[in-house]
């Protein structure tokens, strides 16, 4: 058969590789800054833009979507043409994809410090950026499927199965979780509320990890580990089982983030069951990756690329064993809201994603520039810095997590909480947070060494943009192959089946939760927020308070004793978005406003605490928010916010928006006047007034006697 000659264009893969390096350093640096801010809160220098609550979403978005995202695209644009024996479908689409994605990252880097956020973890970007992400994802899909259609190989290699699964699933996740009603430019409310919003958010959050950080990176592993070891993957048959089991199971596991919360028990049970079953396919992937190196272990001693891949794949195995263990209810009762979870996710991010990316970059740059790596010794040093950095980061956090959990739950012999002051429990883990900073410094230093090494490598060679290859054209003939062998040659069918696999779990979990009313008990006394409280809630979102404070009291004696009555599903029916949080660096706020409650504080305390937390307690690690006492509430937006909320089903009376500003001013006047009586000089329209109104509302609908009000 005649052979066709063609060329691969390395330019876009190189662009994405450079962007991966750049955003990787930025993401790590921001992570390091917020780790230091946790120990030394004054380091926000009283500037709103660099406060922990605003920078933490920037860190997570930079690492996930900028560093790992560009890493995925580097792998795709390098491996897909070579595996399919054809250049990418369109150079223009490739360029739009690259520059569009970088533009999205820049938009995120500007808007998040400005406090323009949806207030949903890992999905903080506001709707104009969400729309951009959708468009660029379509461009990526178009380019990928265009390339698949004009391929010269009949069967699609396993790496591309994972890319396809990631592409279709991330599209479903992003669109479903980003359904929101715009109020104004860069301000929207999600269409879901309370329990349903929590469920959709963690279905998204968990599967962003599953498909963006895992499935796409498994594609990377299946291409680059065999290339680096110069050996075929251990088992193609295992990869089939591992692939379908993984994508089918992963989608169900999201509710394990909501154990003991006010989500229905059946959803929690599904999350636990599928998380445990997930160990099998996850370890199938790890075994396939590690055993690819059989007979090549001698190379691992020498080659920094293989060393990084080995640690990366091992970290994947450890994280995917730990995840299911954390989803067991008895373990989760201890681990949830503590630093244990933070340690767990960083084993995945620093170990699996970080090491796999570093290995790929060290393998790619010499081939881009047709020259040997500038310094193998430097790469080996990077390897050890990254490995030690990861351990220095995670091990103290494991100890911190256990310490927090045990202190939160400890009672005296008389039956009282041994550590009723939440701050006491934080002060015990402060040294561990300091050690975590050391881990971060080590990991970042390794990253900087890599930047130097890659720049020197690039400078010592010459970029080889085009690479020639040849292959016979794909014969058009009716397939006689059966089942999996057949669908490996049909990318569209393959994508549809992958979509069906992820939709089964999605639909079975979504439909009952959204349709069966008994899943969310209505509470008669729960009323919509007043206009001032609604504005205060938006300030709570803007400042990213959910990054440190939860609003979900679990039904444990230790929590009820500390915070008050446990949270009910009907309490958050008007919360667009829900604010249950995932971590308690500070105390839970779900019953903050209950006057007869355990943690009630007067307005004046809140004012002093927000402006200067160390004034109320010298050891407090909360950053100061002095700008809240200086900046005005965006009163003009109140009517449109009320209208938007009513469109989403919040029962504000018809025409209430026209009197909403008067209502707001009246309530603000009452709070400000009370503060002035307490000797605090503050104007009615300041943001701090709205935030105090919101905090004092929290938990008051149900209060101390919930059985009296549940319908």
């Amino acid at each position, binding site marked *: 058969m005649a052979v066709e000659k063609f060329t691969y264009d390395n330019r876009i893969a190189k662009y994405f590789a450079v962007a991966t390096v750049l955003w990787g350093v930025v993401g790590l640096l921001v992570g390091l800054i917020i780790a230091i801010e946790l120990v030394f809160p004054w380091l926000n220098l009283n500037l709103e833009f660099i406060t922990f609550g605003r920078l933490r979403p920037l860190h997570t978005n930079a690492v996930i979507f900028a560093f790992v995202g560009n890493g995925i695209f580097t792998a795709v644009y390098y491996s897909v043409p070579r595996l399919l024996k054809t250049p990418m479908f369109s150079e223009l689409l490739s360029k739009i994809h690259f520059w569009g994605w970088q533009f999205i990252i820049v938009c995120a880097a500007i808007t998040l410090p400005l406090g323009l956020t949806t207030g949903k973890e890992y999905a903080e970007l506001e709707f104009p950026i969400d729309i951009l992400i959708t468009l660029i994802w379509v461009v990526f899909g178009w380019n990928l499927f265009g390339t698949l259609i004009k391929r010269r190989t009949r069967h699609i290699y396993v790496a591309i199965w994972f890319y396809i699964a990631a592409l279709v699933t991330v599209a479903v996740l992003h669109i479903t979780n980003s359904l929101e009603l715009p109020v104004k430019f860069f301000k929207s409310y999600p269409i879901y509320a309370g329990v349903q919003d929590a469920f959709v958010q963690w279905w998204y959050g968990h599967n962003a990890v599953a498909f963006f950080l895992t499935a796409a990176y498994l594609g990377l592993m299946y291409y680059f580990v065999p290339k680096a070891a*110069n050996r*075929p993957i251990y088992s193609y048959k295992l990869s089939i089982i591992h692939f379908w089991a993984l994508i*089918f199971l992963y989608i169900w596991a999201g509710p394990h983030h909501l154990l003991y919360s006010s989500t229905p028990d059946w959803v929690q049970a599904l999350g636990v069951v599928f998380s445990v079953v997930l160990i099998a396919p996850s370890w199938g992937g790890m075994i396939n990756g590690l055993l690819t190196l059989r007979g090549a272990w001698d190379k691992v001693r020498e080659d920094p690329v293989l060393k990084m891949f080995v640690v990366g794949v091992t970290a994947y195995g450890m994280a995917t064993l730990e995840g299911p263990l954390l989803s067991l209810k008895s373990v989760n009762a201890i681990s949830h809201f503590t630093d244990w979870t933070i340690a767990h996710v960083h084993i995945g991010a620093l170990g699996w994603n970080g090491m796999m990316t570093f290995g790929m970059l060290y393998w790619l740059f010499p081939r881009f520039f047709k020259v040997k790596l500038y310094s193998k010794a430097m790469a080996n040093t990077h390897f050890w810095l990254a490995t030690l950095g990861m351990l220095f980061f995670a091990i103290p956090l494991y100890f911190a997590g256990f310490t927090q959990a045990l202190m939160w739950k400890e009672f005296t012999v008389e039956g009282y909480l041994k550590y009723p002051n939440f701050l006491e429990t934080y002060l015990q883990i402060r040294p561990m947070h300091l050690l975590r900073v050391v881990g971060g410094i080590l990991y970042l230093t390794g990253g900087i060494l890599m930047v130097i090494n890659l720049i020197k490598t690039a400078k010592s060679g010459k970029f080889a943009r085009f690479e020639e290859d040849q292959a016979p054209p794909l014969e058009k003939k009716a397939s006689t192959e059966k089942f999996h062998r057949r669908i490996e040659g049909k990318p569209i069918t393959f994508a549809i089946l992958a979509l069906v696999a992820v939709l089964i779990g999605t639909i079975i979990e979504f439909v009952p939760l959204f349709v069966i009313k008994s899943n969310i008990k209505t509470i008669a006394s729960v009323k919509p927020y007043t206009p001032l409280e609604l504005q205060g809630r938006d300030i709570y979102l803007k400042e990213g308070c959910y990054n440190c404070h939860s609003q979900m009291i679990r039904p444990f004696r230790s929590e009820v004793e500390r915070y008050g009555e446990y949270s009910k599903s009907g309490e958050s029916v008007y919360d667009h978005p829900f604010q249950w949080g995932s971590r308690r660096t500070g105390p839970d706020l779900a019953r903050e406003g209950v006057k007869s409650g355990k943690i009630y504080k007067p307005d004046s305390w809140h004012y002093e605490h927000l402006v200067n937390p160390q004034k109320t307690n010298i050891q407090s690690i909360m950053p100061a928010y002095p700008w809240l006492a200086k900046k005005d509430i965006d009163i003009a937006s109140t009517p449109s916010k009320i209208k938007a909320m009513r469109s989403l089903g919040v029962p504000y009376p018809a025409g209430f928006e026209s009197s909403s500003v008067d209502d707001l001013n009246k309530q603000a006047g009452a709070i400000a006047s009370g503060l002035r009586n307490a000797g605090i000089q503050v104007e009615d329209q300041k943001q701090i007034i709205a935030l105090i109104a919101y905090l004092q509302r929290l938990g008051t609908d149900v209060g101390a006697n919930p059985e009296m009000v549940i319908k």
Partner: protein
Amino acid sequence: MYKVISSLLEDVKGMDVLSAISVSFFFILFIIIMINVIRMRKEHAEEMKNMPLEKHDLNDKF
């Protein structure tokens, strides 16, 4: 249509068995894939395993 489905679903009882049903469903799929994989010809598996590797990789000097 939505109203019909929604009214039907509102009466669904025994949501707690959903996880058992779902896991059973998964194991059926798993067994089907397993059987197919076991019956797969060895040369197909070998061809797919070697796809990322190319002849020039043997002389890779980087």
